[in-house]
């Protein structure tokens, strides 16, 4: 059964969603939870069966889809995708389990299950077109989530979200077609298989163009400055569950795609664009942190903080060495957990007060101590305190990039300062001080259902902060494979220098791995 586990993982929620139409309204929540649980368990089984020592893809499945045009239903995962998949099923599970009172809950749960399908599809596709299919398809349920259950400006937000990402990904699609065409020219056969594309060595100028085309799709999804403005609206208007999934998983599609496509396919272009992208990443880090600091709405703070953190992820990705990329992949997961949790937390208070304005709060630590504690833990994780999950990722990302540029890393490192500024200020505004607003006097603390979502996230945050090895080691192995591929493929001397061969380094450095 494990031979087809990826297909099962992808289509089980979709099937369940369709069956969900039949389920009676009152029981839909239980249905959703059980489906999500099964899915989560399946993903755990996937993790269990995953062999970290194997280099390359595992659980590969292949089925011709449009062989005449080289499109195959090709699935497979390595550690980079594995953990995001597990995170996706996990976040979906707790998301569904902790849904508050929403109107039309049946539609929402069905939508969430469809969304889950698209997410897992994106992360397990090894064929560019299959990847693209899920990538685009994921927009639809998200559009519905924002547009149907969102705030007052939800329609504007959802259209903006959809069209913006859609535009970017269409440019990416053109890039994919060009890539396939170049492959066709080189080999005489059409193929959209990413693994086949990996083997194609392109001249540098073509790499640059294709890199840009792919970049547009990914950058808008991430979202990178200056393409980020859809995100605050989407987050600001989306219901809690929408924000959680958006921040935790959907944004990761962009950064994941950088690792999966841009780096191994265009190593020289990656080196060429490394510095400009790093500068964009730094702008993301500092500028959006400042914007976050200026916000009045606590959800917007978290939203902009996401952009800021994505900057660090991008930076780590373009460190182009094992440390940096491993760090950025780890940070993807970390950010998924932490920002997901933060959005959950914002949702908790929004459920109680139906406002997210920080000026409405103040002194919440008095009335909701448990809430304040969990928020505090997550905030500190977001700020990147050691022994929380985020730190590992940020540390490694920055460490990796330091190899490439000292001064840019120094600038990017201000993330830990500016991040602290907006987070602590927001926390202070909302939680500290006296309770001045009458409405806040008798707010109930976090209830059991909410605890169910938050406690596991807290545990993961700290557990992986202290003992990241189970996740870090497999990721490291997969990343090493990618980096050595890049090193091998690089054609310019510059790129050869910038991308160290991890295998060679292992031999030459006296201290590496000798402990």
């Amino acid at each position: 059964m494990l031979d087809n586990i990826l297909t099962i993982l992808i289509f089980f929620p979709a099937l369940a969603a369709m069956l969900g139409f039949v389920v009676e309204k009152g029981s839909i929540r239980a249905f959703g939870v059980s489906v999500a649980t099964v899915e989560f368990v399946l993903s755990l089984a996937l993790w269990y069966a995953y062999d970290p020592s194997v280099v390359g893809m595992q659980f590969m499945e292949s089925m011709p889809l449009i062989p005449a045009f080289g499109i195959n239903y090709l699935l497979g995962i390595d550690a980079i995708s594995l953990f995001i998949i597990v995170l996706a099923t996990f976040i979906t599970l707790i998301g569904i389990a902790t849904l508050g009172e929403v109107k039309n809950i049946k539609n929402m749960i069905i939508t969430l299950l469809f969304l889950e399908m698209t997410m897992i599809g994106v992360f397990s596709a090894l064929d560019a077109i299959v990847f693209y299919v899920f990538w685009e398809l994921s927009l639809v349920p998200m559009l519905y989530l924002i547009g149907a259950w969102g705030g007052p400006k939800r329609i504007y937000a959802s259209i903006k979200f959809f069209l913006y990402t859609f535009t970017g990904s269409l440019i990416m699609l053109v890039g994919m077609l060009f890539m396939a065409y170049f492959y066709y020219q080189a080999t005489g056969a059409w193929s959209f298989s990413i693994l086949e594309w990996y083997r194609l060595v392109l001249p540098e100028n073509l790499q640059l163009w294709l890199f840009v085309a792919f970049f547009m799709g990914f950058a808008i999804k991430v979202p990178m400055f200056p393409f980020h403005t859809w995100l605050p609206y989407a987050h600001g208007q989306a219901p809690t569950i929408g924000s959680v999934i958006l921040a935790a998983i959907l944004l990761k599609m962009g950064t994941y795609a950088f690792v999966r496509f841009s780096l191994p396919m265009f190593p020289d272009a990656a080196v060429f664009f490394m510095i400009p992208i790093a500068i964009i990443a730094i702008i993301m880090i500092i500028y959006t942190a400042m914007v976050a600091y200026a916000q009045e709405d606590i959800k917007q703070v978290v939203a902009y903080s996401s952009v800021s953190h994505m900057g660090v992820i991008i930076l780590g990705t373009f460190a182009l060495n094992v440390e940096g990329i491993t760090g950025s992949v780890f940070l993807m997961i970390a950010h998924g957990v932490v920002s997901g949790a933060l959005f959950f937390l914002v949702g908790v208070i929004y459920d109680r007060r139906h406002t997210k304005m920080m000026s409405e709060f103040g002194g919440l630590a008095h009335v909701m101590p448990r809430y304040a504690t969990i928020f505090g833990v997550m905030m500190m994780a977001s700020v990147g305190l050691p022994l929380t999950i985020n730190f590992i990722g940020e540390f490694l990302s920055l460490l990796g990039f330091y190899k490439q540029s000292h001064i840019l890393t120094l600038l990017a490192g201000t993330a830990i300062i500016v991040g602290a500024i907006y987070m602590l200020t927001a926390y202070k505004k909302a939680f500290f001080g006296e309770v001045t607003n009458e409405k806040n006097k008798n707010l109930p603390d976090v209830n059991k259902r909410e605890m169910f979502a938050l406690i596991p996230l807290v545990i993961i945050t700290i557990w992986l902060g202290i003992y990241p090895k189970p996740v870090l080691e497999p990721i490291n192995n997969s990343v090493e494979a990618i980096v050595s591929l890049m090193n091998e493929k690089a054609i310019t001397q510059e790129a050869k220098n910038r991308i160290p061969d991890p295998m060679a380094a292992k031999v030459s450095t006296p201290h590496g791995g000798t402990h």
Partner: protein
Amino acid sequence: MLEPVNISIQSLNLVTLAPMLIAIVGALSIIVIDLVKGGLDKSLYVMLTVLFLFLDLGAIFNFIETVSANGTLLGFFDVILIDGLAILSQLIIVGASIIFIPLSLTSKRFHEYNYPEYYALFLFMIAGFQFMVASDNLILIFVGLETASLALYALIAMHNREKSFEAAVKYFTMGALAAGFYSFSSMVFYALTGSIEINQIAAVLAADGYANIGYVLVAVIFMLASLGFKLSLVPFHTWTPDVYEGSSAALAGYMSIVPKIAAFVVAMRLFEFLIHSGVVWLEIVLYAAVVLTMTAANIWALVQKDVKRMLAYSSISHAGFAMAAILIGTTQSNSALFLYWILFVFTNLGAFTMLWVSRQKTLLPGQSSDHPYEKFAGMVKTMPLAATMMALFMLSLAGIPPFGIFWGKLYLIGSAVSAEYPMLALIMALNSAIAGYYYLKLIIYMFMKEPIDNASSSSYMLNASLPLKTIIGLAALATIFSVAMVNPLMEFITAMVYNSGY
């Protein structure tokens, strides 16, 4: 002076005429049946039409084997040309017609469907289209074109509403102008080459190395204007929104598909050789026309307030999209055009049928057209399944994978890429993004807004009947699972197109 003409029946190869003849016979027999016994129910005529069309289809299928073996098949004084293009386009024409005609089995009564003439005209029209695509003789193309058009004008007018007459008159007048253009263009070609067979024209022009390029261009321009009218390329598109709005939704959907594929085939036959002979001017002009058609139509569609008008502009844009295939002019692009159009058939028919289903007999107060966006507000609350279907068609039209049109777009843009038209590919892609907005707008009305008043929303699906629902379901299934049929289609189409030398 003139020698007696001696022509053997064999050399006429009358079988090549069979598909058209079947349609014509069908039309005549319907008229005869009505003469014999009047007052029969429309369902009889519908089913008869479907039957004849199936026969027609069978006749077309007959050619496949011969054509794939021998390339092309000539007949009837060599004016009929059965090649891959002809087969493919006839399949599309007849296939789409088979899906279309049961749309007259509505639960509301519309009076045109009670006239047997409607069905006769319909079959004549199909025969006209078939002539158009199955010939490279300009006369026969002209005859086919006009037969089909005249029948179509009548069909539009038979909807018997103020707007339908207006639409018919507008369409007719512009059609007459286009006919003038067509014949003028044919005249110039004839003057230049002494022939009205496209392949001969090509041969003569190539032989003298396009010496009279100026006159060739004049001919091309008028041909472009007249075919551009049929294909609704900007700026020859002006009839489209009005005529679509004036016709019944079902007929509008039909018009967005069948006449265009016929015109595409003619355009392909005429323009391909010109582009390949290095008439740069034509390439530039077509490029401009394609880009203009896609973009301008999209932009106008953005601001429409009526869904049917929006879909009209959207069809213009799609036509521009498909026209890019002719501009690119490779086997891949020409195959992509057919693939695109087949997938477009299902989605667009589905979308228009959804409109048809929602048609009231009379306009509601405060409603200036049949299908304003507001009518669909909050549809997911009242009719979740219908709303989902409609959303599905919209997503497919927008090119969201894995729904039908996406695969067409993919292959078409792919052909632009492999013919090294990177800018064109990009423009096509970006236009899909612009188009996303107006398709999304309908989804937003259906899924994210509250119903305006309950009376109108409960009256949705008024016109639905089992056949209509079946057709919608069929279209939806084809749209969702299109990926399964893309590969066989692609292989078949490519083989056919390649065989015809395009």
